[in-house]
């Protein structure tokens, strides 16, 4: 009976830990995408000559007008930012829950809202 309980408990911890790790991977992937999109936008805005550019969708290249491409990319870029924020927001409760399962104390001050720039500057000498 006890072994069963223990197994269940361990499985629960493992599952949550796995979840956190996959979230972390996802954030790396998203950031990778974000940086590449940013690079592409930069390149497009620097390029003054061509009217149309090649865009790769899946495994097909399509030639699209430059302006449209830029708009598409910018939309992607903004979407990525919110997506990353979402994932990182979801991570906190998961980490807290994992610590709870492992019988560790909650991380102190985890749930606080961040101070604004001015406020940090006011107390900077102390930190």
């Amino acid at each position: 009976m006890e072994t069963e309980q223990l197994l269940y408990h361990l499985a629960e911890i493992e599952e949550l830990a796995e979840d956190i790790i996959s979230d972390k991977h996802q954030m790396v992937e998203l950031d990778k995408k974000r940086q590449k999109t940013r690079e592409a936008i930069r390149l497009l805005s620097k390029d003054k000559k061509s009217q149309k550019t090649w865009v790769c969708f899946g495994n097909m290249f399509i030639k699209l007008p430059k302006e449209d491409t830029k708009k598409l990319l910018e939309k992607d870029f903004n979407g990525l930012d919110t997506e990353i924020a979402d994932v990182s927001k979801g991570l906190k409760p998961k980490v807290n829950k994992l610590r709870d399962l492992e019988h560790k104390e909650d991380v102190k001050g985890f749930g606080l809202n961040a101070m604004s720039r001015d406020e940090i500057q006011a107390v900077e000498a102390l930190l």
Partner: protein
Amino acid sequence: MAAPTVEKVQEVREVTRIERIGAHSHIRGLGLDDALDARNVSQGMVGQVDARRAAGVILEMIKEGKIAGRACLIAGHPGTGKTAIAMAMAQALGTDTPFTSIAGSEIFSLEMSKTEALTQAFRKSIGVRIKEETEIIEGEVVEIQIDRPATGTGAKVGKLTLKTTEMETIYDLGQKMIESLTKEKVQAGDIITIDKATGKITKLGRSFTRARDYDAMGAQTKFVQCPEGELQKRKEVVHTVTLHEIDVINSRTQGFLALFSGDTGEIKSEVREQINSKVAEWREEGKAEIVPGVLFVDEVHMLDIECFSFLNRALEDDMAPILIMATNRGITRIRGTNYQSPHGIPIDLLDRLLIIATTPYDEKEIKQILKIRCEEEDVEMTDDALTVLTKIGMETSLRYAIQLITVASLVCRKRKGSEVDVDDIKRVYSLFLDESRSTQFLKEYQEEFMFNEMSGTAQSMETS
């Protein structure tokens, strides 16, 4: 993202305390098990099982944040471990909870009024937890490319390639970034962070993979691992500062340097009020947490009636810390009055206190304590010597016996011995008088001392 954040949070203020061998330096905690029962000998604590249990219960409540504005009193004979219990509580609370320790007589100073000194002590014991959040770009510099315009003047443009173990990207650089990169002397192979909001560049060190780029390198070159994960990450750091520290930097007459010089002088009450309301505002917005700490007042009978009434009032404040007091007095006069009261504390304050009593140590416990002290002071002692010392401790006082350890070891070293023996103990026992033998001596030879005729009046002069 989660893991680095968690690590960062825990990193806060982990400064190792370097302590000299003091009277209580062997104490690591209260020595309780999970059920809050005191183990007889643990973490440097010996005996006082009931008092330690009581302290443990209070400690748990402090940790859970269930009590604030409470006070407790540790009362007992001299040398029964009152300060030791308070120190153990401080150790067990950890570095995150502010702990201030003062002696009752410390508040009497010429530069500061008594209430100011007490207020400062109170505010030193209240922490404010705040969080700083920054968006940073962290990576190893793969390449910097700066193009200078052919004409010699005009804006420079450039490219910066950064990588982590997982990814790599190119940033276009503007004039400002190029300037700060050159100023920081950033080159390929450096690990840098760029604060996104301010554009501030910090050099963390050189990458390990580039360790063999040059044969000769300055001693200050620091090598670090290439960062993992994403390039652009959010860094969250939690700080705990005390209300007193905020008071000091905001008290206009002195800059924040006053924090280090230690002499802060008096702080205007308007400043305190402003800070209180600001902190309350932060609390409303979920930006700050109050961490009620612990204020420990040793020798509390040295406070006078004004201080006691101040304490009474201050404990009612909604941001009051937990007050722990210690005294070795029985029924005695309250300082500043002609009234007698238990422990020299007014009854109305006494009524608010949780009182923990310590009892005298028995022989076995004294032996154990002496043994721990020997270890702490790196003194080897034979069993016989320890038994003799325990006897001395029983007859005179524990403090006297503890003091004999160091001197005995010096005597032992002088005769080039490796272990302190009974003879060494005997020798220092004859060299240094304990309190009762000294009194005895004075009684016998009183006539030969100066001003002995005043001995009758001295008693009434002692406390004023």
